[in-house]
């Protein structure tokens, strides 16, 4: 067990370094004008001075400077938000996105898994077909459409929730539900497929033959195995949800992390791009690590392989 985890941990560090190197080269090579804010052209001396101030004139210096700072959680200055350091931006935005993201994933698991189990157990009935169709509609609709629809229903047609913003509990439900819809769809689909697989296997036949009640076969024997693929999906999905969704944040006016992924790339804001990528990769890698541990605990066969 310990050996398994140390191996994963070492590999996680290597991945993180590789991610940093790749992102750095992409940022350096992608053409862009981080200092050109509007249509006005700045004098060449000013631009040169600015580049020097942000160490952008010497790529190697910048490479090591950023890395040295990042280890101490200091991501340096943002190029576009003048009075903010990237650390401040992340510290401000990440908790907001994380709240929405964690709630959305919890909601998605609590809704998606039961739907998938029910759908698999009533295979090819009208209930199954309507769940599967609902799931496909959920996958096919862009988030900006579902978000706008929810907004129209719950703030205009039946005004019980605030239109947008952040700060009170009433601001939570709409972004959380909008963000969770595609996750619900994928989790339901995965659960259904894994359950169908499990339900046709021999140990279920044995359980039925031994007289276990259909309810127990479904919700304990089969689901225990069918939950594993769902678990390995939930890891990356949580990383994605926790670091925010641009669309959800834009539709509901939430000051979260997702907007920075897009804006940083569009503004060629090198410092912010690398900060956001590192935040995303660290959360993805650490969540995958947690999932690995959970997996090994749920399914001892994995450890046996080492």
């Amino acid at each position, binding site marked *: 067990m310990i050996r398994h985890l140390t191996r994963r941990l070492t590999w996680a560090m290597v991945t993180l370094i590789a991610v940093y190197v790749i992102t750095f080269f992409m940022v350096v090579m992608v*053409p862009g004008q981080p200092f050109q804010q509007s249509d006005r052209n700045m004098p060449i001396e000013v631009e040169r001075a600015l580049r020097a101030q942000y160490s952008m004139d010497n790529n190697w210096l910048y490479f090591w400077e950023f890395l040295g700072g990042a280890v101490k959680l200091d991501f340096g200055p943002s190029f576009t938000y003048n009075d903010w350091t990237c650390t401040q931006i992340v510290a401000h935005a990440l908790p907001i996105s994380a709240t929405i993201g964690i709630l959305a994933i919890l909601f998605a698991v609590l809704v998606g898994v039961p739907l998938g189990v029910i759908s698999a157990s009533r295979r090819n009935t009208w209930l199954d077909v309507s769940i599967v169709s609902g799931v*496909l509609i959920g996958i096919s609709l*862009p*988030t900006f*459409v579902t978000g706008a629809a929810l907004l*129209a229903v719950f703030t205009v047609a039946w005004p019980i929730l605030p239109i947008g913003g952040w700060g009170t509990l009433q601001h939570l439900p709409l972004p959380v539900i909008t963000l969770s819809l595609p996750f619900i769809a994928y989790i339901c689909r995965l659960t259904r497929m894994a359950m169908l697989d499990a339900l*046709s296997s021999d140990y279920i036949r044995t359980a039925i033959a031994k007289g276990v009640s259909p309810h127990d076969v479904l919700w304990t024997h089969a689901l225990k195995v069918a939950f594993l693929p769902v678990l390995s999906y939930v890891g990356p999905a949580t990383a994605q949800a926790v670091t925010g969704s641009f669309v959800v944040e834009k539709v509901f006016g939430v000051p979260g992390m997702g907007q920075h992924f897009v804006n940083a*790339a569009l503004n*060629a804001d090198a410092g912010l791009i690398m900060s956001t990528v590192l935040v995303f990769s660290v959360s993805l890698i650490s969540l995958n690590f947690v999932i690995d541990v959970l997996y090994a605990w749920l399914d001892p066969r994995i450890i046996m392989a080492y």
Partner: protein
Amino acid sequence: MQSGAADNLVHTRQSRWSRFRANRLAMVSLFVFASVLLIVLTTLPWTTRWYNIQSLDSAVRAAPMISPVVTFEAYGVALNPSEVSGWPKLSRLMWQTTSWMGHDDLGRSLFHRILPATLLSLIIGGCAAFIAVVVGSTWGAAAALLGGRADAVMMRMVDVLYSLPYILMVILMKVAITRPLTSLLDGHAMLAQLIILIVAIGGVSWLTLARVVRGQVLSLRTQPFVEAARANGAGVFYLLRRHILPNVAGPIVIYATLVIPQAILQESFLSFLGIGVQQPIPSLGRLAADGVEAVNAFVGFWWLIAYPCGALVVTLIALNFIGDGLRDAIDPKSAQETLL
């Protein structure tokens, strides 16, 4: 019981097709998808000329209705009646559909925009999926066949690329290839833009396929018929062409039908950000994003959202059901009866 290999092959093909045909959802989806494609393609001569005809006449900016209230005159100079006289009857018939889905804020017929938009979305999705399939399956198959250290390095690279944020990579990729490609395709701005979009979306969608194909090839490599071929002195490329590729074709096709909807959605997201297909060219995502922007919740231009989203959902659901049906047909295990 013994039967020839050729018989077996025919038999599996037939039973695959009959399994697919037995899947009612998949067959309906196939029919819907084929009709959409047919309609979109046959109306192309008119829609490509009419999709951007604007009018500020207030009668034009009306809600959807079945009977045409909009006359050629409402479009004034924009639409020259003599232009329509090419195919008088057919064109007049097409013109009857102008108001079916209403008009946007510039008085353009939404129906005449949705038709080419669907085609463009399908082209973007199809080409991006094609790139993803070619890159992904080559990468995965190469990793599995080379084996050893090369395999480890190649798959670790996939792991690393997986831990980069998807949307940021699409944007950076788009920014990175925009300048060289635009100068390369000087004068074909629209084509360049389309290729950039397709390459950016396809360039980040191949990772999952690389993993899937590698797994398949690895398990095929140890099969007796492959070992026999290798023992007879078959080279890597011969093995790949003759034995490996035909056997992984199934999973690749299935995956491709599921990548197309994802790529279409990805394009709609880029359109929402304003870096997808540019005005006045319509794609389904572009139309939906424009609709969301135009529908200020207090003004009810509902059709600007409803119809593009309807078209998007119908197309994507059809593609998804076809993909599911193909999987059940090719892999009979996934369709076997359950015990409960």
